[in-house]
């Protein structure tokens, strides 16, 4: 019973991960008109689906980066398996719920925050609540980048800056090179470049992010004795995770797409091309070097950089500031949500506790969806002129 809830919740997280991150790859292509909004999300969804199947590596040890609930081979710690794995399942369930709640809230506010950090945050919070502070791996053993500091905090500080610099340099060079070429001619050419580079980002996203959910579900299956092989993932887990992330991507997080595509910088095709090329390169290079980073932060940094690199372009630093603030509180906020959910589940206890927190998730998700309907943003108005600081009054204007 609890296992079923964990699987459904994890797939739900995968789904939010998809629509939260559509913007990373496609916001710029949608903003410059390189792709029509519906075509862009479809392309991104298909590439995410393909990406999820491309990787046969098993991300079973995904939680090992930040918490101590698994052995290094991916099997759960034996002390958590005493009562049929319930202890571990409840931690995972509460953690993933924390991640989903934060993803939904930031989506509602149109803020591109990191889905991986939300997942890590939720699981850290649930672990602290369940096992105490010693359950969290803060720094690793020093031999490689590890722990909360090495896998989350430092990459979060460094990667947007690196991506921004690369995109700024790229944008600046492109504008230098194409002086003397008619704007309409360059725009058409760069739209093609944009589609190519954005596709690479989508593909890389599918291979990286779907893995994490697959790892979480497989961990839950092992904990409850339904699966024993630590070097493989059940095929149905792979298929359902791939479908969940692709469906989420296709739904499109229009609110976030709008912020990234229109809010930060007015993007012209050469800038969009430079931004996505920088993002694709930084993501691929980093994963090659084992430097864990957030696709979202890299994409945001790149788009900012493309605004800095174009002479005379306007960058809305206030919007950027809100995003950075959201990044900084992503981990603690998701952790609080995860910890709260664990405490509720523990207070009630057993299956009933798990059912209650799951119900809480549904209520909160439904509530946020209702609020979102009051100021809908979809493929029709995603590219409307950006209004500086939306008036809060517009929120209460009409009821959904």
């Amino acid at each position, binding site marked *: 019973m609890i296992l079923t809830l964990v699987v459904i919740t994890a797939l739900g997280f995968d789904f939010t991960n998809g629509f939260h991150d559509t913007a990373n790859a496609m916001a710029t292509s949608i903003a410059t008109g390189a792709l029509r909004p519906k075509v862009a999300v479809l392309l991104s969804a298909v590439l995410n689906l393909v990406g999820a199947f491309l990787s046969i590596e098993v991300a079973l040890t995904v939680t090992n980066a930040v918490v101590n609930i698994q052995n290094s081979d991916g099997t759960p710690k034996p002390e958590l398996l005493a009562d049929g794995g319930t202890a571990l399942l409840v931690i995972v369930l509460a953690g993933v719920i924390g991640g989903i709640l934060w993803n939904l809230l930031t989506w509602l506010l149109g803020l591109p925050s990191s889905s991986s950090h939300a997942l890590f945050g939720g699981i850290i919070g649930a672990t602290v609540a369940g096992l105490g502070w010693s359950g969290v791996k803060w720094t690793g053993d020093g031999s490689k980048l590890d722990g909360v500091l090495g896998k989350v905090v430092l990459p979060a500080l460094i990667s947007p800056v690196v991506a921004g610099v690369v995109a700024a340099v790229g944008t600046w060079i492109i504008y230098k090179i194409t002086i003397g070429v008619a704007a309409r001619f360059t725009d058409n050419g760069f739209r093609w470049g944009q589609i190519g580079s954005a596709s*690479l980002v989508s593909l890389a996203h599918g291979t990286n992010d779907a893995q994490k959910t697959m790892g979480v579900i497989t961990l839950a299956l092992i904990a409850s004795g339904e699966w024993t092989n630590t070097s493989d993932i059940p095929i149905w887990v792979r298929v359902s995770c791939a479908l969940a992330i692709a469906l989420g991507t296709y739904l499109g997080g229009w609110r976030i797409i709008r912020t990234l595509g229109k809010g930060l910088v007015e993007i012209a095709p050469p800038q969009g091309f430079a931004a996505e090329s920088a993002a*694709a390169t930084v993501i691929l290079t980093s994963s090659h070097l084992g*430097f864990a980073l957030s696709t979202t932060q890299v994409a945001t940094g790149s788009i900012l950089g493309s605004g800095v690199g174009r002479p005379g372009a306007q960058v809305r630093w206030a919007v950027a500031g809100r995003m950075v603030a959201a990044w900084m509180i992503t981990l603690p906020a998701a952790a609080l949500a995860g910890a709260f959910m664990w405490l509720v589940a523990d207070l009630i206890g057993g299956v009933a506790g798990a059912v209650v927190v799951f119900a809480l998730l549904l209520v909160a998700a439904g509530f946020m969806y209702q609020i979102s309907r009051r100021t809908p943003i979809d493929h029709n108005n995603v590219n409307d002129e950006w209004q500086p600081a939306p008036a809060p009054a517009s929120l209460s204007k009409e009821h959904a």
Partner: protein
Amino acid sequence: MNNLTLALDSAWKVLLIGILIGAGLPAIFAFGIRSMAYGTGGDAEVHATGSAGPRPHPAGRIGAAACFGVVLLGVALGITFIVATGFGKELSFEHVYPTLVSKD
């Protein structure tokens, strides 16, 4: 503190490769566009209004094709990298040209 040195160690590599490839390939693409405009002539290039614009230069098209070819090669490498990583291989540049090797 170890984490910080390790992170900075990776960061400058990512920055270096990022600028080389992430800004370099777009630059080559931009050269391709410029070359294409030179090859197309007329309204593709900025010229005084009222005049017909520069005439087309076939050499420009050849240059453009070469630039786009290099960029496509780069993209192909990128895709190979994503796929190879997923299947437990990695791209090695030991022999200058990229080869696939097993990850250890």
